């Protein structure tokens, strides 16, 4: 069908990019076969998760141009839905995940309508506010374990359990996540060429012109926001099955929201590869910096200092992120 053809059509990228992408994909496909440490495996799973978060964020933040700093609440909705349904009613992941998406999207519509009347910083701060409100509510809501959180018991289920997504080895989680990753890329590829994608780009350029062209700006934004939340919620559900312990402070904190936005922006908001590059650089950087430097007593925090300086450097000199640098270099070469 048209949609599938569109999703698989990467032809508007230069050949070189596609070769690199192919190589990286090959690496990802075969990664678990190599004798990497558990630490490396955990890092690469994080990379995949944040790439997906970033891709979702990118729809509204990158293509849409509205910086959203409240994505963590949807991670929470996805994670908690899956966890609660599994713990209380033994419902498998593949059912609870769509339910989580449903709740997330509903919530996104509820706050999205008023939210999108705002723009710029006001919007950004409002997204933070809603995320914090939801987190605070979850912290006192007994049904989801309040601040104590929920725990998926490691001994109740028998791994490998594909229905409930409970595995002993990380490799299984890795491949499931890789599957989502590929689907995510295909979806975004379709999205950026779809009608909604074009509408968004038009809105980002000049909202008034877009409106005069007959685009329902508000609706377009709200729809895109819903897509972003769906992405995030799916990964949130996965997170619950992988980490098996979720609590509001951890899963829905502002830090997560900011990291998501940060990685996408750093890699290059508004491009297909941007969030992936951003996650691919920042996650290993963060993990290994912490591992090498952070653990040394007396140097706690230095890893984040370096991290912060990188962020500051990129924001000051190349706000379009790494992908922006790449494009700039290309443009210069073309001349």
């Amino acid at each position, binding site marked *: 069908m048209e949609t599938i053809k569109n999703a698989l059509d990467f032809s508007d990228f230069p050949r*070189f*990019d596609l070769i*690199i992408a192919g*190589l*990286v994909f090959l*690496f990802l496909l075969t990664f678990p076969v*190599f*004798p*990497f*440490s*558990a*630490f*490396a495996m*955990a*890092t*690469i799973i994080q990379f995949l998760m944040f790439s997906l978060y970033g891709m979702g964020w990118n729809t509204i933040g990158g293509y849409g141009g509205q910086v959203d700093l409240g994505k963590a609440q949807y991670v929470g909705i996805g994670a908690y839905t899956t966890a609660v349904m599994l713990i209380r009613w033994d419902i498998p992941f593949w059912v609870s995940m769509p339910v989580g998406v449903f709740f997330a999207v509903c919530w996104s519509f509820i706050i999205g309508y008023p939210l999108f009347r705002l723009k710029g910083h006001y919007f950004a701060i409002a997204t933070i506010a809603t995320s914090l409100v939801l987190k605070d509510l979850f*912290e*006192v809501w007994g049904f989801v374990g*309040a*601040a*104590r*959180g929920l*725990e998926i*018991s*490691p*001994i109740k289920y028998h791994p490998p359990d594909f229905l409930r997504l409970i595995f*002993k080895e990380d490799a299984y989680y890795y491949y499931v996540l890789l599957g989502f990753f590929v689907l995510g890329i295909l979806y975004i590829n379709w999205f950026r060429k779809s009608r909604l994608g074009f509408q968004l780009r038009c809105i980002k350029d000049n909202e008034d012109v877009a409106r005069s062209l007959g685009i329902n700006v508000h609706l377009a934004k709200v729809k895109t926001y819903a897509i972003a939340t769906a992405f995030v919620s799916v990964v949130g559900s996965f997170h619950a099955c992988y*980490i*098996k*312990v979720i*609590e509001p402070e*951890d899963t829905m904190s502002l830090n997560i929201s900011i990291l998501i936005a940060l990685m996408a922006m750093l890699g290059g908001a508004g491009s297909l590869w941007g969030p992936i*590059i951003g996650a*691919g*650089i920042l996650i*290993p950087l963060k993990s*290994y910096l912490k591992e090498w430097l952070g*653990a040394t*007593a007396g140097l*706690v925090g230095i890893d984040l200092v370096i991290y912060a300086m990188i962020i500051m450097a990129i924001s000051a000199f190349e706000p379009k992120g*790494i992908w922006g*640098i*790449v494009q700039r*270099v*290309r443009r210069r*070469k073309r001349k």
Partner: protein
Amino acid sequence: MKSLLKSGVLVLSLLLAIGLILPSGATAEKVIKIGAIYPLTGGAAAAGRELRAGVELAVELANSAVANVDMSMAKNAGITSMGGAKIEIIFKDHEGNPTLGADLAKKLILDDKVDGLLGCYHSSVTKTVSAVAEQYGVPMINGSSTSPALTTRGFKWFWRTTPHDVWFTRDLFEFMNGLTEGKVKGVAAVPKKDIMTLAAACEKTEWGSFVSEVIEQFSKEYGYDLKKSMLYAKEAPDLSSEVRSLKASRADVMLFASYTSDAILMIKTLKAQKAQPKIVWGQDAGFEVPEFRATLGDSVVGILTRTVFLPQVVQVKKVAGQVNALYKAKTGNDLTGASARSFTGLQTWVHVLEKAGSTEPAAIQKAANDLNIPGNELVVPWAGIKFSTTGDEIGQNTLGSGLIGQYQKAADGQIVLEIVYPFDVASADMIYPFPKY
């Protein structure tokens, strides 16, 4: 183009390099590796220091033969049943973050290939770390986390030496009942209506929230009126609205479950707002660390705290005095509930390894389940260590017990913790009611 290629290659080679270098497993002669995950930084860093020092002292005693300490662990150098194998501790800092704790546990198990785990103080972190241990079948001994839930999960690889909060809270209510019956040393019987109303403020993670529930349960059972029960964030910079809420309830008895920084803040705020309860009680943790006393000075006089070890115990147990002297020489402080229990935790590991004679997980598991350490080996005033293997609770030491201490000013002006419960080992008269601020 070039930069993309470069960064791509850089990342890939970085990952490859790390991946190939990191998987350790370099083994020398027989060294038993135990991973100890404690809060070495963060709000409970003060406790973390104590915990670490307790473990380090225990390892010293275990690995070499030390005279003057009446403990079988100290008499031997290394684990005799394994040819004198020495114990090596790998310390990791979980910063009070449960997810980080779980990550560290995974790394210790998969990359450092530890034979067992010890830790983690915060019940919320112990919860996640033990889940990881259970998943991989790695034995874990827990010395000081007291949330009751930890031993009701049916885990087969988790053993806890310390008694838990149900016991400790029951102690509190027995104590209050004793107060109404005149059993408390130095205090005439207090009419129940004077201490009828209770208010509780507990930190909101795994530990505190369970304490809160247990308090509610026992209030009903013992017939007290719990007027207000609240949970708060231990990292909150300000607790004045919480304290105001406590005051508003006009409760006679205020109960707390707080870690270090919040315990200090809570008492400071109580003092600032001139709260006037008749009894102030803390569920150990923050109320017990040396910082608490050092920071608040005279304000702590009259505060009761559940504890597991006080310096006064040395009067009853010779071995406690011997170890305490070594600990004081090492750190400058007396043993506290935290350090005494982390010491005991490692000591338990030593006994388990001795009994197992190998680091095979199955052997360790059997040894732990059959373990029976007599009370005179321990610095803590327990009857011994023996883990339950059937029933609702598995892996729980059934021979432990708690104490309730009260901060009092000694003749020389120093602030000391005196035992007020159990009644028969009380070391001083109780100060009642709580002194006016």
